[in-house]
């Protein structure tokens, strides 16, 4: 009846996951009770869960990422604590638990922090920057988000029911095969990634179609803001790479569930084929995360330097070059496979070549700042911190791209330090920059600057204190994924890394406080104009938060930095007093399709993990029925009348005029 599931799946003898899960459960229940008592449920259901508005979905993506960042961060704290202690001692966590912690940390940080964070920001911002009313497929957008949430849910369920993978974040066979991992851990891993992978693919298709087919009048490709270009490149990579992940994990699952021989030691299977396939997805994945971050910096740096982006066209070229070359370097993840010097040399050189367009970008940002009036507000702090950190990470990357050096450093902590150096330095700093930069657009008030800067400094310094020691320990021969050790030389570095983790934790706490303080002081931090940073692209041309239709009248773009041009024109000429020609606006209706579909996906995923076959059938039938019901509805759009559009727009125009007059009067 319940497949492999019985009471032994609950880890009663392991207090740590049980207490952690209990705490999470209490928090979730408390939030639910609070929301219920305040009568928020109808609002949450109608305005958020069933919303097909790209801005709302973007916010929910970012929220999911931040919650999962806490989970992945707690995993990191546990790992660093273990290694600071486990010198000549077993430490706090037994090996089978420690292995789950580092596997969960990697999986969560990449798939459920990095991905939803960048996809959320792209969702929120790109349609606004393109001057349009929504993404290409609004309901599908909601489906994509909720499927991602399903993956995150399954991973968190593994904390209390059963176990998580002990295989590392990419579940290499033969270790991940049934004979060496007989438990449900790898199944949790694979099914949650299969389901969230579909969500990511859907988001990718949606955003590529949006950028290529939905742009406002006059928004030619070479007038698009840089963030739209990096969105295009990143989502093209999603479309080309995520199916590889889906196929590879499907093969692993077939091995595990039906006794196939793709990657097994027996029957002619080839586990190195898994390495090739998974990294053919895995390396583009690095750029799927990094390119949007580069895009964020390309928005932040010009805004806070008061100058247009230096070398716009070279930036476009560099972005697209990275998009292509990222598919030609995957083998550098396993030079030690023994493919021979010629193959290794080709991939080594390709890996160094991809550093060139990235270098071009760094120079472009530096030259954008050069001669500008740089304002060091929080987003700009993250951007400058990124440039310094990312250069170091890039240089160590070029070092491990040299095959002979890689043979020595492979799977050492040096490598761990390198990829944290680029992922934290670029993706996380970029996500935080984007979060602080676009928060006023999403909610209508700024985040508190002081707490933001405090968070930046703790995170920035904490990062170096944590990861520079890992470079050193790696050079001293310490390998990754080690549960305890007895080499005296490594000990001080492990303790230093532990101290760094404390600093980074304080950084995260500052960020949480920043949000709390900002919400409390939202009236002082209110942005009434919609353009709090004196910025350049179209998302700032509408109110904060934008009305559901984004733009009362679709903007007409006359050149690069579209909104800057509009502002300049308004300052130069006498203000136009003629009202724009308001029309009725058709918007897509909200739909619970995404949420219901994800509910059935969760049921299906969970029952697949536990071999509850009848429930699998039920879940799939439910998902299909959901789509049919969706396809059967007769009214998929509603109309906002022109008078209502005009009323909303007049308020914003009045606020902008007032702000402009205030700026001019003192002079």
């Amino acid at each position: 009846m319940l497949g492999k599931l019985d009471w032994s799946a609950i880890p009663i003898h392991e207090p740590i996951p049980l207490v952690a899960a209990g705490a999470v459960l209490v928090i979730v229940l408390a939030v639910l009770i609070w929301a219920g008592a305040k009568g928020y449920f109808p609002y949450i259901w109608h305005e958020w869960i069933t919303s097909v508005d790209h801005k709302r979905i973007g916010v929910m993506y970012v929220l999911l990422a931040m919650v999962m960042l806490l989970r992945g961060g707690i995993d990191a704290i546990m790992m660093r604590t273990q290694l600071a202690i486990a010198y000549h001692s077993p430490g706090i966590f037994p090996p089978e638990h420690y292995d789950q912690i580092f596997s969960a940390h990697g999986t969560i940080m990449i798939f459920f922090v990095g991905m939803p964070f960048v996809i959320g920001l792209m969702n929120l911002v790109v349609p606004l920057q393109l001057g349009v009313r929504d993404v290409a497929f609004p309901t599908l957008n909601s489906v994509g988000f909720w499927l991602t949430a399903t993956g995150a849910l399954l991973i968190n369920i593994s904390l209390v029911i059963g176990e998580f993978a002990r295989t590392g974040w990419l579940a290499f066979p033969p270790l991940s095969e049934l004979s060496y991992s007989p438990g449900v851990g790898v199944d949790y891993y694979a099914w949650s990634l299969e389901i969230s992978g579909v969500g990511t693919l859907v988001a990718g298709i949606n955003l590529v179609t949006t950028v290529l087919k939905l742009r406002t009048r006059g928004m030619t490709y070479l007038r698009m803001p840089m963030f739209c270009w990096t969105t295009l490149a990143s989502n093209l990579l999603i479309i080309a790479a995520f199916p590889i992940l889906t196929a590879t994990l499907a093969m692993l699952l077939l091995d595990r569930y039906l006794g196939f021989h793709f990657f097994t030691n027996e029957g002619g299977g080839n586990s190195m084929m898994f390495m090739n396939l998974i990294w053919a997805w895995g390396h583009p994945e690095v750029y799927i995360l990094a390119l949007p971050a580069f895009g964020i910096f390309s928005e932040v740096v010009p805004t806070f330097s008061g100058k247009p982006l230096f070398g716009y066209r070279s930036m476009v070229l560099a972005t697209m070059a990275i998009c292509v070359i990222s598919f030609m370097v995957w083998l550098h993840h396993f030079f030690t496979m023994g493919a021979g010097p010629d193959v290794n040399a080709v991939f080594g050189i390709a890996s160094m070549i991809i550093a060139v367009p990235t270098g071009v970008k760094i120079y472009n940002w530096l030259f954008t700042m050069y001669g500008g009036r740089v304002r060091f507000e929080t987003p700009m702090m993250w951007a400058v911190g990124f440039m310094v950190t990312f250069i170091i990470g890039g240089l160590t990357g070029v070092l491990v791209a040299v095959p002979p050096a890689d043979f020595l450093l492979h799977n050492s902590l040096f490598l761990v330090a390198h990829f944290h150096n680029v992922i934290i330095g670029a993706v996380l700093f970029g996500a935080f920059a984007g979060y602080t930069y676009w928060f006023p657009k999403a909610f209508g008030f700024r985040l508190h600057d002081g707490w933001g800067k405090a968070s930046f400094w703790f995170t920035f310094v904490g990062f170096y204190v944590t990861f520079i020691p890992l470079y050193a320990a790696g050079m001293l021969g310490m390998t990754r994924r080690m549960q305890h050790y007895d080499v005296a030389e490594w000990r001080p570095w492990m303790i230093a890394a532990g101290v760094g983790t404390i600093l980074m934790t304080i950084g995260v706490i500052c960020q949480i406080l920043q949000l709390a303080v900002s919400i409390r002081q939202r009236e002082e931090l209110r942005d009434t104009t919609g353009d709090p940073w004196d910025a350049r692209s179209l998302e700032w041309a509408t109110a904060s938060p934008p009305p559901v239709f984004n733009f009362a009248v679709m903007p007409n773009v006359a050149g690069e930095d579209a909104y800057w041009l509009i502002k300049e024109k308004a300052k130069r000429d006498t203000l136009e007093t003629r009202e724009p020609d308001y029309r009725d606006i058709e918007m897509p209706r909200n739909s619970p399709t995404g949420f219901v579909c994800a509910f059935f996906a969760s049921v299906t995923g969970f029952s697949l993990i536990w071999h509850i076959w009848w429930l699998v059938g039920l879940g799939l039938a439910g998902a299909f029925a959901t789509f049919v019901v969706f396809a059967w509805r007769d009214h998929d759009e509603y109309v906002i009348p022109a008078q209502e559009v005009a009323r909303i727009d007049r308020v914003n125009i009045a606020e902008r005029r007032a702000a402009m007059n205030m700026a001019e009067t003192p002079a």
Partner: protein
Amino acid sequence: MTDTTLQYAAHGHGDPHHLRGLQDSSLGHEGPAPKRIVTAYGFWIFLLSDIVMFSCFFAAYGVLLRQTAGGPSGSELFDLKSVAAETAFLLISSFTCGLASIAADVRSARWYQVAMAVTGVLGLCFLALEAREFADLVSRGAGPTRSAFLSAFFTLVGCHGLHVSAGILWLLTMMAQVAAKGFREDVCRRLLCFALFWHALDIIWVGIFSMVYLLGSAV
């Protein structure tokens, strides 16, 4: 606003990279594309991603082709006559699917339903032959667990078969939808996507026919 920014405006700030010539001529942009174009375009991109997924299974088949683990190889197993019949069913179904699209274009519900029904029946014939082939292989001890080669074979061909099955489910839904809602605009957009999907399955089958069966028979 400061003097600096105004200065920029004076220095042709609106066109900092001197793209004016480019912008005025060929690169002019009219605004968002109509819904039909957007939907079909997005679905094309989905099909491309699906083809990437198939390419992984093709690659795995190529790598594992000779890994028979002492078991039977393709030349001992494949019955090319049955495969030729499968191919014929699928290609003809693509033709009738095209007829259904034409019927939809001229808003002929009767011919649309007939053509879709024929397409579905041909698809089912294809699936029946494939199921017979699979059952036959398993009964001869050449199931997917026998060797890495057979794992790759069953996965690649089976994945295509799953797509055809899903396609038939979709086909039935579309027949019901036209019967219930008529040729409404959104229904027609879905029909367009269905037709693209069905033809794409043909393209993949051509790959399977030549790479799996023809090349596989030579090993």
